[in-house]
């Protein structure tokens, strides 16, 4: 090693340091998100949860392929081999890995297809809620005064709705469908996002860089989009991750009550609902959809916790856990 360095010096070249990079890369600052990712990577629990979520997403996307490999469609009824002679569901076995339901359908295939509905509703409803909440919360916090009073009271009204009761009546007015489920869930969650955003904007608005932007002649819209909202990214990512499982459970609840996605389309919620008549004889029928729901919810929640720590450099929990 020393000999090589001496050779290089003899040739008039500086010894190559191990971390020398081309200048173009060296001056590139790491974004706060890159730093957060570096912190998140050290958090084993979060990485495992992220892995689980990726698996869920893959199984939702490739549901037809997966059920093709298994060989049982989600809605195919195997009344001959899927049901016992008494007409009861089959326990998990070599053909039906997670057993069958009361109509002789493969529970595994149905759970895989149920992932589609759960994730779709979870993500879309959350996205819609965040979008509306962000717009209303930012406007409310930024302008303050009468605008704030009006929008804040509106959010209070939405927060004080008895969720389920209103959801039930809303769904029964419109016909139950995937779209209605997404809309109803977003309808009841956007005000939570709005409150958080408003609180953050209230503090950001007083920062000197907002005053600096104003003194440069920036308009309200520019200040909101260029200076305010980027500072909301971290709390929004965390809150979205925590909202997704809520939305998933909400959807399962609606489906359970028969107000969500219409059967025979499998969802975790309506599977649990269908299992009610036979769960004493066929506990796997209620167990596996519930387990799927549990795993998905837990993974999102733990990832949300990890993200909160990773995105907030002041939080010391990641370091402590390491």
């Amino acid at each position, binding site marked *: 090693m020393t000999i090589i360095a001496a050779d290089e010096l003899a040739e008039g070249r500086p010894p190559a340091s191990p971390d020398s990079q081309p*200048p173009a890369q060296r*001056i*590139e*600052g790491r*974004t*706060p998100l890159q730093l957060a990712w570096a912190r998140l990577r050290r958090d084993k629990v979060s990485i495992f949860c992220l892995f689980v979520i990726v698996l869920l997403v893959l199984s939702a996307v490739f549901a037809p392929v997966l059920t093709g490999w298994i060989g049982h469609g989600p809605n195919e009824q195997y009344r001959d081999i899927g049901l016992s002679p008494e007409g009861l569901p089959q326990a998990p076995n070599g053909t039906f890995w997670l057993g069958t339901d009361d109509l002789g359908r493969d529970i595994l295939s149905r759970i895989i297809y149920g992932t589609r509905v759960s994730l779709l509703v979870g993500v879309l409803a959350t996205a819609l809620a965040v979008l509306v909440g962000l717009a209303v919360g930012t406007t409310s916090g930024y302008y303050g005064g009468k605008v704030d*009073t009006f929008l804040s009271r509106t959010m209070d009204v939405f927060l004080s709705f008895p969720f389920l009761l209103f959801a039930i009546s809303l769904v029964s007015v419109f016909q139950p469908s995937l779209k209605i489920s997404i809309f109803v869930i977003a309808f009841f969650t956007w005000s939570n996002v709005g409150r958080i955003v408003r609180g953050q904007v209230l503090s950001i608005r007083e*920062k*000197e*860089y907002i*005053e*600096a*932007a*104003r*003194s*440069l*002649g*920036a*308009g309200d819209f*520019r200040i909101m989009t*260029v*200076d305010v909202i*980027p*500072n909301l*990214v971290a709390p929004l990512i965390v809150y979205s991750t925590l909202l997704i499982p809520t939305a998933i459970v909400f959807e399962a609840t609606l489906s359970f009550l028969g107000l969500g996605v219409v059967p025979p389309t499998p969802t975790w919620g309506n599977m649990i609902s269908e299992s009610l008549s036979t769960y004493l004889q066929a506990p796997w029928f209620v167990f596996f959809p519930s387990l799927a729901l549990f795993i998905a919810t837990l993974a999102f929640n733990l990832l949300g916790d990890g993200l909160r720590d990773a995105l907030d450099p002041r939080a010391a929990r990641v370091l402590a856990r390491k």
Partner: protein
Amino acid sequence: MTAVDHAGRTVHTQQGEVLLRVDNAVKHFPIKQGIVFQKEVARVHAVDGVDLEVRSGETLGLVGETGCGKSTLARLVAGLYPMTSGSIEFDGQDISNLSRKAMRPFRRDIQMIFQDPYGSLNPRRRVGSIIGDPFDIHNVASGADRKKRVQELMEVVGLNPEHYNRFPAEFSGGQRQRIGVARALALRPKLIICDEPVSALDVSIQAQVINLLDDLQKEFGLTYIFIAHDLSVVRHVSDRVAVMYLGKIEEIADVDDLYDKPRHPYTNALLSAVPVPDPDRADTRERIILRGDVPSPVNPPDGCPFHPRCPKAQTICVDEMPPLVPAFDDPASHRKACHFPVADGEDISTSTPSIDQTSTEPKVGSTG
């Protein structure tokens, strides 16, 4: 002198010509109470009738204690707050209470440097885009042209142009203040308001930033309003100095006149509080110790705002606000608002007021 500047605007300012004229500026902040129906219960008299002239090419120092209204005055000039009353004239045009749209062209000429180099830069944005903001907002340059001009600016203020893509957090306090200076400089303004630009910095860094501001003034012919509470910094940078107390200007003069012959008792008290590096001299000099605290700007005293604490106060001080005029045989540029100005060589550290000041002092606990 008429010239055309880089943006094609006609420039008709001259060294020594009045660039900014503030006429009886008043800013009161209402204090409101009530949950749904808010009622104004009191007003903070932040700026209470200020007359000021800033000449092109000069540096006007603005000093005073915390809460005396100097930052509010700066923000009125920068058009960040609407004025309660009064008028501001910039470059011969009235800019008081213009609408946002009408104010836009003037914002290119009046820029601001902020006190806190940590708070005045958005932590989520790259330095290049922060400094490029003025170009973007005023549609001056975009794309590669903007990047080139931003990097030029970074070089002008002594930053490495290669740090274009860094975030503010990757810079030190002094470097961050340079970023703020570059942003203020971007549109080649005529007037830069420096709101305590160095008070958040280390002393060694203060000198660097002050020298930078000085160099830029020479290079670009800038006019500064320099706000600070460090009197030695103000003496170093200013051509003229105005002393503010409770929203009013108490004394204004060329820098040497003010420091050598302070006329207002408050200026005297301020100057006597400047630390002296020599301990022997520090022991022998006469400090003027003011009694009490600054009265609340919610309910400022009648007459001269300084009378409750002034060692020379007499009955007239309670009744009448003294005009801002020269004292004795001072030049016209040296004006003070005091009925009983301090003469050369007069020692006011032993003076006693002829009025009962206990009655005018705020009661303990009443103002918090």
